[in-house]
């Protein structure tokens, strides 16, 4: 049995958006404010522009062979010598993303909600739920995401509106007139994690029905702009309510700010905490998309087509994710790894790999054209 290879444009856009928004949900905008200072807004805009450009780059890769995954055609354009390292890099990147978000979420839960619960239990829970989400099929995963993701996102925005009366530090939001390119670039570099995970498009694109692909791209760009607006809204609320120095001092400023939302006369008076709990859905979806990607990426190269092989790979990568998560026992270790290794690796992957693939494809096609134009020598 093969997995379904037909999802709609809307499923594509929702799955793609869900594949990146959980990455920065909890700690945004700490790095942006700490590195960018009063110029953080420019860095944020730079991040948004870079993400849209990065998405465009991956779409160009998809256009090379729209019906195939990169894992399947990479050997043809950059030779197997480079193809396999790229495949391994993809696997490592998605595994690291899953580990990062799983551990981060576990630590948020321990810090704010369940201080006596072991971290491994929370990480196991996250991995099992994500595994279950990715288990059945691509289209089912898409439907699950659509059902969970959109209402949670809309509810988050509505609840966040209750923070408006607490915006006492709005002076920190507008940027200054001074522009220091180095500071802006460094802050953008450090906070690009907001969009980590959008590279899933390269795996997901071939699953979109043929007739809907152009529409899917348009939806993906629109969804990314909406995600940028969502983050901008969060930036104003968190910075305006906490002030820049507390944003820098807090480990998870977004969670801290949401915890301020209370409605004393309502049934659930700590509404902000309720929303933070709902954000666990974003995390499950994010990790499910990583597992799905890991399950799909290597299949063409290994010539595995059955759903059983996909599921075995899911289980294998879930186990690897869980095992690797055990390395990080506290947020300080996770942040150090995040800053020193993950940030440069992700930037290299997102903006280094697509140009290499596109260049390889251009050279391959030029060679093919030259070979076709050269008259073949007559047989002896």
């Amino acid at each position, binding site marked *: 049995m093969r997995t379904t290879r037909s999802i709609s444009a809307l499923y594509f856009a929702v799955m793609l958006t869900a594949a990146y928004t959980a990455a920065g949900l909890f700690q945004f905008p700490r790095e942006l404010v700490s590195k960018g200072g009063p110029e953080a807004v420019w860095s944020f805009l730079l991040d948004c522009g870079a993400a849209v450009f990065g998405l465009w780059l991956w779409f160009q890769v998809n256009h090379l062979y729209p019906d195939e995954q990169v894992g399947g055609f990479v050997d043809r354009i950059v030779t197997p010598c480079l193809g396999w390292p790229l495949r391994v890099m993809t696997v490592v990147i998605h595994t690291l993303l899953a580990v990062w978000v799983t551990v981060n979420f576990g630590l948020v839960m321990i810090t704010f909600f369940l201080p006596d619960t072991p971290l491994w239990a929370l990480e196991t829970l996250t991995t099992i739920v994500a595994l279950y989400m990715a288990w059945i099929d691509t289209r089912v995963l898409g439907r699950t995401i659509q059902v969970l993701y959109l209402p949670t996102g809309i509810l988050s925005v509505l609840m966040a509106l209750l923070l408006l009366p607490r915006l006492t530090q709005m002076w920190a939001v507008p940027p200054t007139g001074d522009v220091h390119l180095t500071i802006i670039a460094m802050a953008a570099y450090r906070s690009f994690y907001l969009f980590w995970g959008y590279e899933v498009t390269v795996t997901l694109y071939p699953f979109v029905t043929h007739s809907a692909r152009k529409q899917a791209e348009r939806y993906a760009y629109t969804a990314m702009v909406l995600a940028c607006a969502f983050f901008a809204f969060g930036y104003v609320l968190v910075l305006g309510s906490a*002030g820049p120095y507390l944003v820098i001092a807090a480990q998870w400023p977004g969670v801290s700010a949401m915890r301020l939302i209370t409605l004393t006369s309502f049934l659930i008076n700590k509404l902000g905490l309720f929303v933070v709990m709902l954000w666990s859905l974003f995390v499950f979806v994010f990790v499910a998309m990583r597992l799905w990607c890991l399950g799909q990426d290597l299949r063409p190269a290994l010539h595995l087509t059955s759903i059983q092989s996909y599921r075995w790979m899911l289980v294998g990568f879930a186990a690897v994710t869980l095992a690797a998560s055990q390395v990080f026992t506290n947020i300080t270790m996770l942040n150090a790894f995040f800053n020193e290794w993950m940030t440069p690796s992700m930037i290299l992957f997102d903006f280094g790999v697509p140009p290499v693939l596109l260049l390889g494809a251009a050279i391959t096609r030029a060679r093919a054209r030259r070979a076709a134009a050269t008259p073949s020598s007559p047989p002896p």
Partner: protein
Amino acid sequence: MLERAVMQIASRSTERATRWRRRGVALVAVVSLAIMLAGCWDSRPVDARDLVLAMGVSPGPHHGVTVSLAIPTPTGLVSGTSASGGGASGGGGGKPPTYVLTGSGPDMGAAIAMAQADTNRDIYLGQTQIVLFSHRLSAQQFASAISWLARLGPFDKTAFAAISEAPVATTLAYQPVSTRLGPMYFLTLFTCTGCQTVALHRTVWSLEMRTVTPGLSIWLPAVDAVGPNFVVRRIVAFHGDTPVVQLTPTETLAMGYLLAHTTKATLSVPTPAGPVGVRAVHASRVNTVTWAHGRMHVHVALSVMAIIDQLPVSHASPTLIRDVETEVSRRLVRETLKVMTLLQRHGSDPEGFGAPLFWDDPALRPHWESIYRQATLSLSVSTTVQDVGDAT
């Protein structure tokens, strides 16, 4: 025919096996999730918890801290949270509805651990309604208490904060007349901002923010346990982590205007016709902070909407209204500017005039204290009488 039947049987058998396998996986998933989602590691029956309603922090022996925890008794909890809202004479058979646990140690965590040794239940801080700081805490003790609270994830940062000159354990044990559970008095008081003359509520979150923000000073309402209820009508302003000035009720009122926290303040304004009673309904303000000639210049523009609720004459005239508006503005300028100057002299900036300046220009941050002390302060007040009541 036979072959087809065999195929059908084989197919059904495979489907059945698949179905059972799926059910098995679902069962395992559901059981695993049920076990994990129950949060059994953190699960404590509510009757095995000591729900702390108020926490007091005061200096302890050997430069440490003493933590006092006001905890409701089971009967106090039931009567205090009943629909009637209690009252000091409510149920409980004459026993006090709350008791206070204390513990001392070199830091907050050690002090709480000492308090934990005096009870057979789990001390739970997630329901704390107010944190009361002693006026006698040193700057280091105060800062470390805030730092400890900031790191305490399950602690609700929307808990209120206040300061007390009296020993905090005594203040926490005080039984107000209007509320059976003493600490719940503050919940009612501070959540109804329109009920107070000046809305003096402060949260632990705001303390945390002000502790780390240069140019934004801490201020706290002072709590006195005298009379039938707690008395909360004065502000204590801080310089850094040290309380430096306690404002009188009149100065607190003026500062309420400055902070736009005033809701029910009243003024008696002298006019040629006699004194006029004015209720200032709402004050909004716009701060303008500029940096020129090496000095910070602060200008506050207050807009006050007022109601006249007592007149010395039988009919109000436009001239009288204009006189009242002018006199209210003049008086508020005088009183509020006096408080601004007083706070500046003590190096306390509760309004945070300098904070935007220091954020925009990080080079100024190390010098913010001297910059604030040398700043020029000015104030303008525009008063509008909105209502003269249901009488001519």
